[in-house]
Every structure is written in C-alpha cells, then in structure tokens.
C-alpha cells in the first residue's frame, strides 16, 4: 500500500520527520500529486498552442466561420487557460509546505 508511488523518491526527507504515524503514505501521495501538478503546468501551454492554432483549420473556406463564433472561441480558451493555470498554482501553493517544492526539475 505504501509502495503505490514507489517510483517517486520522496524529494524532501524533512517532510517525513514531521509528525504522526500515517506520514509516509501521506507524503508519498502528496509528492506524487505535486509532481503530477507540475506535469499539468508543463502541459498547459501545449494545450493552449493547440487550441489557439485550431482556428487555422477554419480558414479552409468550405463554410466560412462567422467572426463572432471565432471571437467567442478564442476568448473562451483565453478565459479557460488562465483559470486552469490559477487552479493548478493554487493547488501547488497549498501542497507546498516545504520551502521550495518546485526545486526538482
């Protein structure tokens, strides 16, 4: 059970010394989650590029896209990406008890 994140070496051993008996499992899970958050933060701009390059495909004028549709799409993505980024960063901050959790690359 405690090995479920076994391939992740705990990045900060001081976390382990801090407290109750269920700590090891907790820490590994937390570390695991934090790394997945970083993965998400890394992937987000890629998603953004893909979504914002999508309008290029509309340029094929079979049925021309109306400007309002295009604008709504671009701005919807523009609202969505920062919100997701904000949620990710908030989650990172909440999980980041040790001073520099992002120190691993």
């Amino acid at each position, binding site marked *: 059970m405690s090995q479920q994140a076994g391939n992740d070496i705990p990045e900060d051993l001081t976390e382990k010394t801090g407290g109750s008996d269920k700590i090891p499992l907790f820490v590994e899970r937390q570390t695991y989650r934090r790394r997945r958050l970083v993965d998400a933060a890394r992937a987000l701009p890629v998603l953004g590029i893909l979504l914002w390059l999508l*309008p*290029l495909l509309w340029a094929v004028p079979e049925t021309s896209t109306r400007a309002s549709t295009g604008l709504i799409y671009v701005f919807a993505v523009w609202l969505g*990406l920062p919100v997701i980024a904000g949620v990710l960063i908030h989650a*990172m901050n909440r999980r980041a008890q040790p001073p520099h959790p992002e120190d691993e690359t």
Partner: protein
Amino acid sequence: MTNLNALAAISILYVLFLFGVAFFAERASRRGRAKWLRAPIIYTLSLSIYCTAWTFYGAVGSAARNGFEYLTIYLGPSLVLIGWWWVLRKLVRIGRVQRITSIADLISSRYGKSNLLGVGVTLLAVIGTTPYIALQLQSVTLSVEVFHHATPGGVEEQSTAFWVAVGLAVFTVIFGTRNLDANERHHGVVMAIAVEAIVKLAALMAVGIFVVWGISGGVSETLARIDASELGQWEVNGGRWAGLMFLSAAAFLCLPRMFQVMVVENDNDQQLRMAAWAFPLYLMLMSLFIVPIAVVGLDVLPAGSNPDLFVLTVPLEYGQNALALLSFLGGFSSATSMVIVAAIALSTMVSNHIVMPIWLRLNENMVSVSGDVRHVVLLSRRLSIAGVLSLGYLYYSQSGGGAALSVIGLVAFTGVAQVLPAMLGGIFWRGATRIGALAGLTVGFVVWLYTLYLPSFGPGAIIPKSFFENGPFGIGWLHPEALFGISGIDPLLHAVIWSLSLNTVAFFVASLASFPSPLERLQGAQFVNIQQGTGGTRSWSHGAAEAEDLMVMAQRILGATDAQALFLREARRQGSETHLPAPTPEFLQILERELAGSVGAATAHAMVGQIVGGMSVSVEDLMAVADETAQMMEYSATLEAQSQELSRTAAQLRAANDKLTRLSVQKDAFLSQISHELRTPMTSIRAFSEILRDGDGITPEEQSKYASIIHDEAIRLTRLLDDLLDLSVLENGQVSLNLGDGLLCDVLDRAEAAALAYDDKRGLEIIRDASKEQVWLNTDTERLSQVFINLISNARKYCDAPQRVLEIRVTKGETLSVDFIDNGSGVATEAQDVIFEKFARVSDQKAGGAGLGLAISRQIVTRLGGAISYLPGEGGAAFRVVLPLDRALAAQ
C-alpha cells in the same frame, strides 16, 4: 471639445499624481514598509507595460485593417505566462541569484561575462527600441491632435512630442536612477506603472462598455453587428497567425523593458505564480473590446478616419468628452509607462556595457583611488536616459511621424527576438558558447537589418530600389524580401523565419565548433543548473587582491556606508576582528556579485579583475576541481580494491574456520576413539586382575590363562601407545630420518620375515620377482620396512581368500612403485578413502589392530618423499607405495 490647455492641465495633474504615487512608494520602501510593494498583484500589473500605446490605440487600428490578427500579439505572451514553468521560472531565478541587471547583462554574464556580447545586445536593444519610443511620442501627439486640430507635422505637434519626452526624461531620471543597485528595485516606478496599468485597462474597458452597451445595445447586438460588418468572416492568414503568435511570445521574453519588469524587478517566486494566471486574464480583458470598437468606428465614423484613433474618436463622436479624456489618459499611461521602463532598461544597459567599460579603460589606474564613483555611474545612467529619449525624439521628428512608424512595432519585435536563441540556449544548454552566441546574434541582426528593418523605411530610402527588383547587383537569391529565391511569403514572416532560423543555426553550429573558456563553462553550469542550488562561481584566486584596495573600490560603487557594512559583515563571518575581511575567493565572489547589481556582471568582473590581477578563473581552482575528481576516483578505486581484498580475506577466514571446525570435530572423534581403544584392554586387565586377587579356588591353569590374557592385553596397550607416540612424532615432523643406502630386496626380505613371524595356521604365500628388486635406495630402511611390514601383515590379517596369496610387484619408471596386491575381496569402495585415517578399520570383527597402521605408514612414506595409495580394480586389496628415484640408484 476639450481645449488644449485643459488637456495639458489634466495631463500635468495626472503626471503629478504619478509622481506622488512613485514618491510615496519610494518613501514607504525606504522606511522598510515595502511589503505591499512586493505584492504579486503589483508585479502582475507592472507587466502591463507590454501594452504600449501601440497596442492601446494600434490594436483597434490593426483590427480595422487586418481583422483578427491583432489577437496574436496578446496570445503569444499569454502562452509564455501560462507556460511559466518552462522558461520564466528559470529566468526569474537566474535573474535573482546572479543579480542580473538587464537582458544584455544576462547574455554577457552567461557567456563568460563577455562585454562584447553585452555591447552587441545593447546596440540591438537601442536600435530596436528607439523607433518604439518614437512611436509612443507619436501616439501621444496624435491623441492630443484629436482634441486640438493642429496642423499635422506642424510646430505644435513637434513641441508636444518634445515636452512629453522632456517630462518623461525627468520622471525617469528622478525615479529610475534613485538607486544604483538595480536589484534594489525601482519601487516607485513599478508602483506608478501598476497604477497606469489600472488606468489603461479601465479606460479601454470603459470605451468598450460604452460601445457595446451604449452604442450597439448589448452583447448579442454587438456580435450581430460584428458579423454584419466587413470583419464579418473569420479570415486569418495562417502563416501570420502562427508566426506572429511566436514572434510576440519571443519578444515578450526579449524586450528590454519586459525583461526589466519581469526579471530584474522580480522579488520572489510568488509574484510569478500570480502573474502566470492573472496577466493572461489582463491581456484578455485588454483585447476583449477591440473588435467592437473597431467595428463601430468603421461604421459610424466617416471613411478615411484614422482607425488607430477610434478609441478616442468614437467617444468624441458621441459627445462623451469625459470618456474620451479617460481614454486619452489610458493612451497617455500606455505610452509613458513604456517609455519610462524602456529608458531605465536601456540606460542600465548603455551605462553598464558601454559607458562604464570605456570609463574604466580611460581610468585604468584609478580604480583603487579613493573617491565615490557612484556619481559616475549615476551620471552615465542619467545621460543615457536623456540620450535614449533624445534618440526617440529625433527618430520621431526625422521620420516625420508618418505611417512608417506604425509598422515599426512588429519590426522592433523581430529585432529584439534575435536574442531569443542565445538566451534560451544559454539557460537550457550548457554547450552554448560565447562564439556561438556572437555568431547567432550577428547573423540574426544582419538578416533582420537587411530583410526587415532597412526595407521598412521603404524601397529607395536606404536600400536602393534596384535591390527590390532584381536583388543586390543582380543576384536574385539575395533579394531582401525573397531570400534564396523563396518568394511569395509575407515580408514580415519572411524576415522572422529567415533571421531566427539562420540565427539559431549559426548559434548552434558555432557553439558546437567552438570551445568555451573556463569562466564560460562555470557560468554555463550555474545558469543551466540554477534549480539545483545557488553555489557561486569560484572565479577568483587567492592572494594578489588587497583588501584595502577592494574596500576603496567598493566604497566608490556602493557608497561608504553600504560598503563598510558589507566588509564588516564579511569580516565577522570570516571570524576576523578587523574591519577588513581577507580577500578569499568566496569574499571576492560575494563582492563581485554586489557590484554586479550596480554596474553589471561584466563591469564588476573587470573592476575586481583590475585589483586582483585579472585572473578570471584561477588555475588552482580548476586544478582543485580536477584534483578532487581524480582523488575521488582514486579513492573509490582504493575502496574497491580494499573491498575485494576484504572479501578474499573473508573467504580465506571462512575456509580456515571450516577447517578448524572440522579439525575440532576430528579431534573429538580421535579422543573418543582413543579412550575407547584404551578402555577395552584396560577393562579386561582390571577384570582378570580382580579375579586373580580375589580368587580363592582358582586353578593354576586358570591362573596362568588369566595372567596371559592380562599380559596380552598389556602388550596390546603398549603397542597402541607405541603407535600413537609414533604417529604423533611423525605428524609433528619431529621424527629424524636415519638415511642410508640399502637394496629394496633386503628391505622386503626383512619385512616379510618380520610380518610372517607370528603367522597363524592359514599361511600366506608371497610372490616376488627378485630380478626387479635389485634397486638401491637411499632412504630410512628401518622406517620403510615398517611400512612394508604393515602392508604384509594387513594382507595376512584381512585377506579373506581360502588360499591367501600376496603379490609384491616392483615397477621402475620415473619413480619406484612397489605394489602389494592380495587375492582377497579388497576394500569396499566407500571405505577406500578413509582407510588411511587414524582408527579407520574396515571391519570390526577382525579387530587385529587399533587402525593406526595405515595412518602411520602414510606418514612415513610422506616423510620419505613418496606416497602411498590404494589401487582399486586389482582383484583384491592393492596398495601402491611410490618412492622417489632421485634417491634410488641402480643396483650395479
């Protein structure tokens, strides 16, 4: 219409308000109450200097002219911030740790503190930024012109631009050069910019809201209006859409002013974490109402109106003077904040990379002379600010403020983006070298100049018209807008693709081909591995530096108070009682970094170098690193050897232990065997002697019988003890051999006679070949015959054949073999390897001996240099005694 005086008054009031904001922020920061000044939201808002007047006014114009392409200018930076984990996080950390003062400083510092690169980037930045400043001046002038119908290009227009430039210069000098240490951050300026960011967002959104709800009548009506307008179809040029997105992202990272607010003014990671999501939202809001304003402007304003000014003219058209004024202030804010930060960034670069090195060279021997040089640095910065703004103004007045300026935004973007390969390569790739960066920048710069910057003045202005017809001197593939004969691409895209790709290729190839200096490699490792810790570059050698000289120099740069505090702190840290710390490499490195925060890495390095003696990376340091590695390797090799030896020794010890255990077991077995052997005869002797003692009616026959039993047993005991003694002597090697010459047949004769002396009734026939026994031996014949006796008696005792025959066969070869073969059933296979052990007896029923005979025989033969073994497969029990022949001489 607001008249010009009122407008001027409002502008001046607004500027005074900004002065006040900056002043209070500075004062709060000096009093140490600057915590709120470092709030992430302030940082986020300060990034808005990306949105200059060019975007404030120009975005609407761009939308009116080119449709939705304007979006890309904001989408690129949004992506950069959303992808903060990739680049910005690292860049910001490098900036903080290395105390980077500008983008030129970053490049110079990364590539071995090369001032040449610093100068190159500075020039590129100045060339790229000057037109941009001119553009801001133009936009302010144009917006003023909207309120007051002055003659375009007339004296008044020029004077507006002039006074705006002067005002900005004053503001920048006051708040931009208050601190020398760029890392002490311009809180006043940043705060003012943050306020301006709010003003311009509010202004643009106010106009947008007025347009959407006030004019069009709601969101759906606005959307319908957009669809019905000439922008009604979603049409984008695919290449430009992707290309501009990339270009704006690149420029966002490389623009000197963006670098200034994003990296230099950055204080902690938390600021970036907020900006990462909040700034894209800011950009989104900034561009949200652009299309509606453009559509309404196109709709309601007379044909031929300048779409760049729709933000002002649309409210004015509807008589909304207050809104127009707010919009004017928004545009004014955009322009001024950009100019201020750009001037600070450029002046830092010019002063640190051009003025200071020249000053240092001119005053080469004066570095350690007492006297504050801070005024030199400050003066050079102030003059640089004035210079940058004058350049901008000159550019504006010379270009006549025409349409040539409006295209300059993207041209400038492309220019500064040339730094991108060197920058990203520098922070992610340790193999990037100074030569590579120089090559890349040069190639990119030249291609940019030739394909975009110079042509942007129009054919014939600088580049002759003929170049655009047939290429330079008729060389078609060098056509400025169709390099390598690839034509038909949009000129901007063409320039972006060729300049950046050739730049990258040159950077990469030259990096691969060149070899970096030690300092470059140290810096490269530091920059690339910034996450793994902040150990400094150990770039100063011991010794030559004089602490006093350093003190004098530091006082001149940092000011007496700060310098003394720094030196005292370091002296205490070193445990010194005096005020001067020893000039250790660590101290020199700290000092250099402090100085770098004021005058840039290259200059600081050069200044310390002048005192220390210019040894940039001490050979000792490098050798120490190499030595350490070698020692580590040696040490680990030693460890490995030792561990191998240990495991060998352990194996030996284990074997020895096994042997000892076996010996102990053997000894126990031997003792119990011995006691048993001694006890059996003892028991009989005691029993019979008791009978004799207590016996009353014992007949004389019985008496003599018992006595003879006692006698026999005593003899047996004696023999056993003799044998034991013999064996012990032999085993301990204490036996002294009595060597002498003798014939083998004599020894055999004697042994035969002795062995058969106690012959029982059954008899033993011995077959010998006397001719082969004529062998002279140099040996202990007594001992040898003892062996033979033992072997013959064994045959007599144990041979179970009815007619017992023993054949003694002598073979002479390399050695002399004497085989004793009887015709009995032999020794069982499983017993063959134990018969030479002590007390090993094949069977109990014929308990003729103690089982020591063969053990003794083996010891004797071994002592004599030979061997005795059992020969299987000879039909009966067969023993072979092998004797060395070097002692055996032929009979004759």
